[in-house]
């Protein structure tokens, strides 16, 4: 999967939780889920569940804590896919 394809998939996953449309339209590798997309922090667990379902991976607690932005999410997803 290319970087662009992965970002597109993530965009689809986070869309329902986004409270800042501008941040969403400009979503890129450096986008922060809380600060740029204004996702309610409680919803981060839902984003992670949706990522798990989409990619059929399990994200452990340590990885969850790090998944605060697009870049970290991409790294973790790639790592978990590689382990499969």
């Amino acid at each position, binding site marked *: 999967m290319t970087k662009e394809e992965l970002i597109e998939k993530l965009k689809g996953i986070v869309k*329902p*939780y986004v409270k800042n449309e501008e941040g969403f339209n400009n979503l890129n590798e450096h986008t922060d889920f809380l600060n740029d997309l204004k996702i309610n922090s*409680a*919803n*981060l*667990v*839902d984003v992670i*569940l949706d990522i798990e379902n989409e990619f059929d991976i399990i994200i452990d607690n340590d990885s969850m804590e790090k998944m605060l932005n697009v870049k970290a999410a991409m790294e973790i997803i790639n790592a978990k896919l590689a382990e499969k």
Partner: protein
Amino acid sequence: MDNRVVITGLGVVAPNGTGIPDFYNAIKKGISGIRFYQELKDFNFSCCIGGIPKVSEELKQQYLTPLQLKNFNSPGILYGCMAGIDAWKDAGLSINENSNTDWDSGTVFGTGSSSVEKLRESFYKIDAGQVKQLGSTAVVQTMVSGVSAYLSGILGLGNLVTSNSSACCTGTEAILMGFERIQSGKAKRMLVGGCSDHGPYIWGGFDAMKVMSYKHNDDPEKASRPMSATAGGFVPGSGAGALLLESLDSAVERGATIYGEVSGGAINAGGQRGSGSMTAPNNEAVQRCIKDAIHNANIQPDDIDLINGHLTATIKDAAEVNSWATALNRKGKDFPNIHSLKAMTGHCLGAAGAIESIAAILCLHHNFIFPAVNCEDVHPDIAAIISPEKIPQTVLENNKLQVIAKASFGFGDVNACIIFKKYTE
């Protein structure tokens, strides 16, 4: 001096009508919302009928956002939000997610039990070792205060935000709690009401108690028969009712439509002594509650034009009518008109008092008495106390109602009675 409290907004999601215009039309025509549900039969219920409001997917989306509806499985909260938002808008108040917190407005929005479907779903996940799959909303949907929490966020409420719970008294109690808050000057506006889930997981316990109607699975609309000689238990219902209560000063200042006044009320309990038990009312407590409400509202028993009873269509109906007659000291032809909305909606449990109060206020505002359907054969014990003509079989229009008494009684031997009065300066 105490503030006067008026009703400036109404919202309802009932088995026989979603939204005030639908509901108003239904109660006037005596339209039933009771239907047969195959699911209940498949689960071996004795009572396979019930009252469930009709709410389409499109309608849901007008009240809750796609995010709020994600993993959402709480019909009671949905109905509560719909009724609450309707009542708020009906009062001419606006909804803006970017507005400032409204420190003068609060809510008391009750429920008998919260989101059993969501709880069940969660338990299955936990038992399967999948606690993580609960996501972020299992708590807010299953906490008893879920409905008031959702409403507070949608409307920006900054005064008291809470959910009361007192079984079938819940809705009526919520109105009185909000009333007292405004009366004492602690809030200007209170959104009050009650909501209830539906389905086998909430109704099953009642079915097991054999207190629900089981002889009318083939003709559901005839099943709920308050005050009838052939009453055979209550029919379960669900939904929500919401009232926007407001200080008279605030209502007048805003130029709001005033549907009526809450002139007083009372809440008490029978302590499960005397004739009272966990599931049966202490008649002395019921009578005290009615008398206290009359006293608190500063009216006379003779002022009451209409009683909107609790009257669930069980063997306790006659005892309730006797309590009213004793408390008011009015019998035979001197007794006020009396009816029970449950004949059309079933018993909406935690929502009952709120939905029934809305029916009462619509009667008061539009000068009519909805028909006591399914009571063509008045129970002889009731006919011995009051004249059967006081239980109107057809709608009575152009009835200049001034005062309506509404009561609800609940498991735990708890009671609440409200006096609604036509508003006059």
